[in-house]
């Protein structure tokens, strides 16, 4: 099945990213599907950097899921990479989509988790309608 997103749907997703994550100081946030397609994004990094990042992070997320299954877990509820300047947080929207947030050390992980939960709740109906 192909995914078709109209102009209104993309605009709505961009608004959610902006209101729930970017306005709270995160550096970049994007939605990627399980085949590595970058669905929507916003933030400080240029699209040519985000596109390969989306492909890698989607595969990273899928690989982590497989790891969970191999040790008898259904899923890992928190997937988070900590760097010296940037950190990455993953949130599952549904079976097909992942919300990824890149943020620096001035933003707390708790705030990102809260913003991700709120964003996912609002994004779900938009993506289900696609």
């Amino acid at each position, binding site marked *: 099945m*192909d995914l*078709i997103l109209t102009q209104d749907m993309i605009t709505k997703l961009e608004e959610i990213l902006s209101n729930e994550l970017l306005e709270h100081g995160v550096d970049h946030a994007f939605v990627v599907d399980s085949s590595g397609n970058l669905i929507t994004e916003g933030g400080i990094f240029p699209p040519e*950097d985000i596109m390969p990042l989306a492909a890698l992070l989607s595969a990273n997320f899928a690989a982590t899921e497989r790891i969970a299954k191999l040790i008898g877990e259904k899923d890992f509820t928190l997937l988070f990479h900590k760097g010296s300047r940037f950190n990455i947080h993953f949130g599952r929207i549904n079976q097909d989509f992942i919300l990824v947030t890149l943020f620096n050390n001035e933003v707390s992980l708790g705030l990102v988790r809260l913003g991700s939960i709120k964003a996912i709740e609002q994004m779900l109906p938009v993506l289900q309608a696609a």
Partner: protein
Amino acid sequence: MAFIDLKRKEIRAKLVFYGPGRGGKTTNVLHIHKTMSRDVCGKMVTVDTRGDRTLFFDFLPLTIGKIMNLTIRIQIYTVPGQVLYNDTRKLVLRGVDGIVFVADSLRVQKDPNIESLKNLEENLRDEKLSIHEIPLVLQYNKRDLAESNVPILSIAEMQNDLNRELGVPAFKASALRGEGVYETLREISKRMIRSVTLKLKSAQTQGQVPQDIPPTP
């Protein structure tokens, strides 16, 4: 699974280079990356081991033209060919829209070629796709070895082993020298565009996509 973004007026489709280990899948993509203009070719990412074997995948985004006022962007992936990495191959195959099967012309690779094609068919079936329906092109790589003393498979033998039932276009290539790489890419792009156009027209009939998509200003 092609992704159609009507805001940016883009179609994104996924092309996977498949085949046995050490067959030259990464070399194909490296040649494209090295020789294509930066205007159409994005950043290449590669996740390999110290021995230059692909561990996870290679990734290269490419813009190949327009249909119905929509820009077509193809994201090229390669899979790790080694038998051991089937889980990773399955992950990379998720949402695939077109495949280049890179077969190795070395005579010792006769069986691994056949096994890898069978593995592709099985993994596609798990994705609910048929090897007979998905856009597919074969490439017989390392033909330059014919000039050396290394025993290689004849084209007729490779056709018989791999393409007898499929009957898809097959290209002789030496990815190391860049020969046959663009012929393969051109044919698979053509087939993917045809398949995406059909899907687009069907989406238009169902009202999911407007009949007239205005050009980007």
